[in-house]
């Protein structure tokens, strides 16, 4: 068991170190998120009352597309440099590779959200910095990373991978969007931390579904 975790940690650290060196993913995605926030203002001309109603939706659409951007890069480096074979040959359980990518993606996106959430909260005057919303954002990010990493491994080896990945992942994540938006809206409206709320259960269920299925199926995606 501890070997598994050590291998997992090693793989995660590898991705973190690469990102620290190049700083492409987090910085790029963060700027994207802030840009979208500005564009929303231009496009929708939001007034105070409307902004409150639309904020959960705007936030989550932005996070979804930002996540897809980050996921597009998850395996890109390995595939383009031919080190995917190195991963295949590594004496680790294939699920370790998958989980390490999920963890790395969640970490990167969390760094982005660290700045994005306050920005959204300020720009849209929305109470987004509550523990409830933070947990919701985490669960949503986890679900997004879980489903996205699985199919990023497939998309990276296909043609038009940037177009294909959203097509594969977004239909699967529709329930995640619905749940995250409604949970955020409820929390913004002042609901107590909804541990037993159906939306959180749905988010957790989705994470379990994607993580569980991926651990079982990832092997098939990484085969020669």
């Amino acid at each position, binding site marked *: 068991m501890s070997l598994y975790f050590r291998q997992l940690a090693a793989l995660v650290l590898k991705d973190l170190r690469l990102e620290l060196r190049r700083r492409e993913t987090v910085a790029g995605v963060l700027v994207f998120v802030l840009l979208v926030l500005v564009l929303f203002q231009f496009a929708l001309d939001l007034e105070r009352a409307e902004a409150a109603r639309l904020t959960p939706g705007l936030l989550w659409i932005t996070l979804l597309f930002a996540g897809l951007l980050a996921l597009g890069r998850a395996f890109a480096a390995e595939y383009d440099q031919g080190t995917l074979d190195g991963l295949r040959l590594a004496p680790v359980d294939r699920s370790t590779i998958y989980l390490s990518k999920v963890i790395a993606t969640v970490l990167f996106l969390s760094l982005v959200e660290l700045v994005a959430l306050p920005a959204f909260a300020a720009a849209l005057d929305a109470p987004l910095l509550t523990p409830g919303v933070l947990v919701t954002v985490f669960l949503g990010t986890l679900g997004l990373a879980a489903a996205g990493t699985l199919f990023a491994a497939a998309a990276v080896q296909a*043609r038009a991978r940037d177009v294909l990945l959203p097509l594969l992942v977004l239909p699967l994540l529709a329930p995640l969007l619905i749940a995250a938006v409604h949970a955020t809206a409820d929390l913004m409206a002042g609901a107590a931390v909804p541990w037993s709320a159906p939306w959180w259960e749905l988010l957790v269920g989705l994470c379990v579904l*994607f993580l569980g299925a991926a651990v079982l199926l990832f092997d098939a995606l990484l085969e020669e």
Partner: protein
Amino acid sequence: MDKQLVLQETAPPSVGPRVAATQLREDRALRLLLGLAAIAMVVALYAIFVYAPTERVMGHVQRIFYVHVSLAWLSYLAFFVVFACSVGYLWRRDERWDAVARASAEIGVVFTTLFILSGALWGRPVWGTWWTWDARLTTTALLWFLYVAYLMLRAYVPDTARAARYAAVLGIVGFLDVPIIHMSVVWWRTLHPEPTVARLDSGPAAPPEMVITLVLASLAFGLLYLALLIVRVRLERLRDEVRQLEQALSLRGE
């Protein structure tokens, strides 16, 4: 050697007796199935247009409902077949599983598209809009996207064995996601109910004639689905044979 080939080409090639017999059996079975499907279709059409009562509020246009709901059921059945064959393929790695999965996905997307279009043609006269975001339509729209994602994944991955594996993963995860999609959409709808009455079922207690008609229509489309599936799988199998023979020929320096 060249002289022999020239001689062969002038006379029409005769198919080996074993192959011809198999083809004949397959064709007969398929023709039987198609015959059954045709009969079922005629019976269903009679039920839809003559036997089923005219709905009080919507009138004759409501008869689209029988086709619309049947197509929905079959869309879900086809996706289940994609799921089951995806599991089978990943488990057994036999290409036949994959062929059925792919065929079912193609047919499924056709059925789903027709479901959506028939819904629009029903919605427009009855509720004034081409589209309503009611639970069933929305869920099935997402199913459409899952089908398309499956087919695009296959199209964009050049290596066919790899494409089959990737598509199988999507088929499995997608199908497992469908109940969750359905749940979330239903909850969403209860929170934001449609302003227009979006009940696609025929009111509180559907008269038994309508239920029977619906069952008959579904059976007819089900048989058609089966026939389409068989023919499509056959096409895939034959194409594989062609590829194999082409390879064998190129190995002999044709």
